[in-house]
């Protein structure tokens, strides 16, 4: 049985393996997040929300995924 090819990435400081070829929107959904409620930084560059479905997750990518929380 062929194994699914994966890539190694970091999300919010944590190491993860995800299937090769997925988009950032797919990654968010895989993490259980609603892509319309988060902002994503990839290797310190903001990824415009309109392109989350097109940008492919690459091996070694470092993601920060943030949202709004209570604060003063």
């Amino acid at each position, binding site marked *: 049985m062929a194994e699914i090819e994966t890539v190694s990435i970091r*999300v*919010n*400081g*944590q190491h993860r393996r995800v299937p090769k070829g997925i988009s950032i929107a797919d990654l968010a959904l895989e*993490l*259980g*997040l609603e892509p319309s*409620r*988060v*902002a*994503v*930084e990839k290797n*310190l560059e*903001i*990824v*415009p*929300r309109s392109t989350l479905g097109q940008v492919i997750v690459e091996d070694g990518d470092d993601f*920060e*995924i*943030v*949202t*709004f*929380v*209570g*604060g*003063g």
Partner: protein
Amino acid sequence: MDDQWQVAGRSFTSRLIVGTGKYKSFEQNAAAVEASGAEIVTVAVRRVNISDPNQPMLMDFIDPKKITYLPNTAGCFNAEEAIRTLRLAREAGGWTLVKLEVLGEAKTLYPDMIETLRATEILAKEGFEPMVYCADDPIAAKRLEDLGAVAIMPLGAPIGSGLGLQNQVMIRIIVEQAGVPVLVDAGVGTASDAAVAMELGCDGVLMNTAIAEAKDPVTMARAMKLAVESGRLAYRAGRMGKRRYADPSSPLAGLI
């Protein structure tokens, strides 16, 4: 009575901005916001919880379509961190109206004005409309305005201290010279403090802990709403002059 205030081209009726931190629950937070009458709430930008993504989120309780979210940079200690945070906030919510705060050190949470001025300039050039937490320094306030701050927000006392306005003279000078709204941000402990800020001529007051840490936050939220309105009315009415001695209110003529 029409008494709206404007910031960055937007009009608001409520002059009270409330934070969304330190509440016991989202339900209590939402009820306090409702009772406060606030039309703007501050929010923080943080990493999503990827280990438990199904936890409730602020947006489920306070609807950003009804209440203006004002993303802050709390916890940022230099211009770069603050700018990075607000760029993410803009992407997450599409908002350019933001609250900039660049802190100098953790014990006092006093603003680092050099970094704050630097960040304000960069943010304004990138199209942000920063409302800026700052020291009660009239010169720095003017500089902030020149660099593109859309509101000046001096502290009345350290963040979360509840000590009330320790610097009424400086706040009043900043109000007098400002060409943009001035809001006291931080230091309010109880309703009378909010009224004092408004009586000085501030356009508004921003608070979090005074409501969130009250024994009954929802009731305190209502108290703050009334205090801000009452302080504003007193300012508009124009207070009486002070005298050193008594002046009878009943006529002296016709005394028996």
